[in-house]
């Protein structure tokens, strides 16, 4: 299965050539293994991960020749952070259970948020609808049929106020999955916090704000890379000064993986995106240790248990080296890669949906054994629709069972020192470095994106996977094997009147606010956008006058232009 040209295969053969087997292992091969294979050969000629990465029959000490546990493994909470970023990991504090939610209107989602908090969820995570993600108001013609369907519709500060009604922003942490319009949405959140009397210096949460992976994978972009990177840099710079506990960016591999990448590609492209953001902040004149401690990451948890665990461990080790060696960071908080994990939406099957509970549990366990800081577990019905309350509750309970019943939280990095896990961590790391070096050679990630490099690598991997599933080289239970005719499950229905209700709200908003003031503040935003100053203060002023998201994004389209991708198929 493995493409001989892929860097993964090269790394592996390099690893194998170093393998020197001990006399005891040689004797086992001759006396035990060979007779066994003669009697009952392996059921497949190749064993590979879900990413088609080759896995050998057995891993022993011989696979770790040259591996130095003091240098390469270290201790939890200490460089190179392979074993996790906290000395005591989950003995001190469990990960944040953060279930992504959002549908319909701000009122609808506010009710779901308050329900989830009442059920023991420890952080909020906002899913926005597609018009909001693309910077359109709910009453824009292109929003027709899409308002409130894939998330909550937020067109103005008034919607944001309703979204967090009776939820004190001083006490909860909020993650917001928004990218192209991240800066204006964050401005709305900061304005709500201010109105509630919450101190910006103390509020905490995460803005996804990762535009590079939008060009690479999820494709929710508005503006071209250059002005988009400027806005990301503006938010990081503003956050470093005014919201020191807020993560202004969550550098995301999740969507890269969902688009069909391998685990190594997910890791490599995400970390190389991280390097690109750091480069931009340094060019802005910021000191690396002034912002790097607040950079956060977001990875996928896919089906292949050990490959995922190796990926998280390798991520920390690579980022440590990047921060220390490439950027000269001296603050240990800059060296430690903190990350959120979401189980793999693309692994959920529409067929026999209850099986998804099991898939999600296995994936979540990998994230925890990999040392995640926060986790979203998908609901069993999400191959069909946004989750019902009942399905979302099981997903949250899955995390609680891992946390409180499985025992895996009792010790830090329980898999540390496993021949297989350490070898796979080394190999995944090497594969990722290969990609990072290739992207460096292309002139960085923006240049690589413009040439379609990561997009093509992902499309190739996605197609290879589909062929493997179609040919049953990879079994997907309930889809290409163990198939039965099942009954459809109950799914969440989105109230069809959300679009109309949102349009009414917007009409009223535009009638009640001072339109002259809105125009004045939008003009000042346009003017600032044409220059080089930080846009955050202008955005905050604009949203406070109830300028809508669509008006703000449209005002920025004039100086910034719009992005058209070259589609790669």
């Amino acid at each position, binding site marked *: 299965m493995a493409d001989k040209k892929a860097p993964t295969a090269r790394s592996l053969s390099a690893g194998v050539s170093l393998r020197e087997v001990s006399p005891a292992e040689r004797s086992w091969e001759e006396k035990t293994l060979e007779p066994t294979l003669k009697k009952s050969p392996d059921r497949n000629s190749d064993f590979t991960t879900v990413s088609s990465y080759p896995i050998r029959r057995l891993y022993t000490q011989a696979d770790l020749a040259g591996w130095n546990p003091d240098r390469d493994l270290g201790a939890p909470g200490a460089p190179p952070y392979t074993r996790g970023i906290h000395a005591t990991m989950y003995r001190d504090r469990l990960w944040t259970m953060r279930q992504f939610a959002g549908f319909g209107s701000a009122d609808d989602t506010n009710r779901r948020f308050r329900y989830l908090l009442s059920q023991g969820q420890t952080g909020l995570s906002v899913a926005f609808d*597609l*018009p909001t*993600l*693309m910077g*359109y108001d709910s009453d824009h013609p*292109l*929003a*027709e*049929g*899409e308002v409130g*369907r*894939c998330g909550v519709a937020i067109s103005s500060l008034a919607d944001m106020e309703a979204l967090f009604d009776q939820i004190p922003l001083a006490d909860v942490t909020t993650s917001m999955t928004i990218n192209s319009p991240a800066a204006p949405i964050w401005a709305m959140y900061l304005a709500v916090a201010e109105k509630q009397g919450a101190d910006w210096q103390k509020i905490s949460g995460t803005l996804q704000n990762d535009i590079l992976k*939008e060009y690479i994978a*999820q*494709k*929710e*972009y508005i503006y071209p890379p250059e002005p988009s990177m400027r806005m990301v840099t503006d938010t990081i710079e503003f956050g470093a000064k005014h919201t020191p506990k807020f993560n202004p960016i969550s550098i995301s591999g999740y969507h890269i993986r*969902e*688009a*069909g990448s391998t685990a190594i590609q997910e890791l490599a492209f995400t970390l190389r995106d991280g390097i690109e953001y750091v480069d931009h902040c340094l060019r802005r004149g910021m000191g690396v240790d002034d912002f790097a401690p607040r950079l956060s990451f977001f990875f996928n948890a896919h089906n292949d248990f050990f490959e995922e665990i190796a990926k998280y461990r390798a991520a920390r080790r690579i980022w440590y080296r990047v921060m220390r060696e490439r950027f000269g960071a001296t603050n240990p908080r800059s060296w430690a890669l903190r990350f959120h994990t979401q189980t793999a939406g*693309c692994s959920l*099957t*529409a*067929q026999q949906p209850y099986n998804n509970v099991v898939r999600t549990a296995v994936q979540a366990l990998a994230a925890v054994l990999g040392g995640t800081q926060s986790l979203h577990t998908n609901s069993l019905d999400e*191959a*069909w*629709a946004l989750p019902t309350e009942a399905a979302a509750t099981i997903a949250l309970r899955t995390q609680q069972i891992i946390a409180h019943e499985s025992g895996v939280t009792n010790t830090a990095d329980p898999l540390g020192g496993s021949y297989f896990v350490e070898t796979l961590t080394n190999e995944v790391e090497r594969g990722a470095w290969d990609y990072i070096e290739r992207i460096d050679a292309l002139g960085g990630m923006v240049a690589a994106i413009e040439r379609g490099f990561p997009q093509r690598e992902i*499309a190739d991997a*996605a*197609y290879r996977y*589909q*062929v493997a*599933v*179609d040919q049953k080289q990879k079994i*997907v239970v309930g*889809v*290409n094997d163990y198939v039965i005719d099942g009954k*459809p499950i109950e*799914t969440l229905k*989105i109230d069809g009147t959300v679009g109309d209700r949102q349009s009414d709200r917007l009409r009223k908003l535009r009638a009640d606010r001072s339109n002259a003031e809105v125009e004045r503040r939008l003009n000042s935003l346009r003017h600032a956008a044409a220059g080089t100053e930080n846009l955050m203060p202008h955005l905050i002023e604009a949203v406070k006058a109830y300028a809508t998201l669509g008006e703000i994004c449209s005002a920025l389209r004039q100086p910034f232009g719009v992005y058209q*991708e070259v*589609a*790669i*198929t």
Partner: protein
Amino acid sequence: MPDKKIRVLIAKPGLDGHDRGAKVIARALRDAGMEVIYTGLRQTPEMIASAAIQEDVDVIGLSILSGAHNTICTRLMELLRAKGMTDVTVLIGGIIPEADIAGLKKSGIAEIFLPGTTTQAIVDFIRERVAVT
């Protein structure tokens, strides 16, 4: 004319940018010997209908995951009828609730392929359908 290639327009309507499925299908149909035109993202029904006419395609394949299928498909089928393109086969691949399938088929959608469909099943369906029409 056995050497005439089947022409397929793969379109991604609506605001959603998740194009993994559209791209995989485009490549699979191309590997099966069809002529595939991929529209790229965020196509309105108007853009899809005029691309279908311009490219003179036998098949339009829509990839929709966002829940906006009823709005999009109703409009597209109206436009195709208005432009006299009644012989084009329109297919949907993506996430479509069971409850909406009958309505979509009634509006003229030839088939709806749900998650888990093999690319071969889609290739076979298109070959059979285009041979008949």
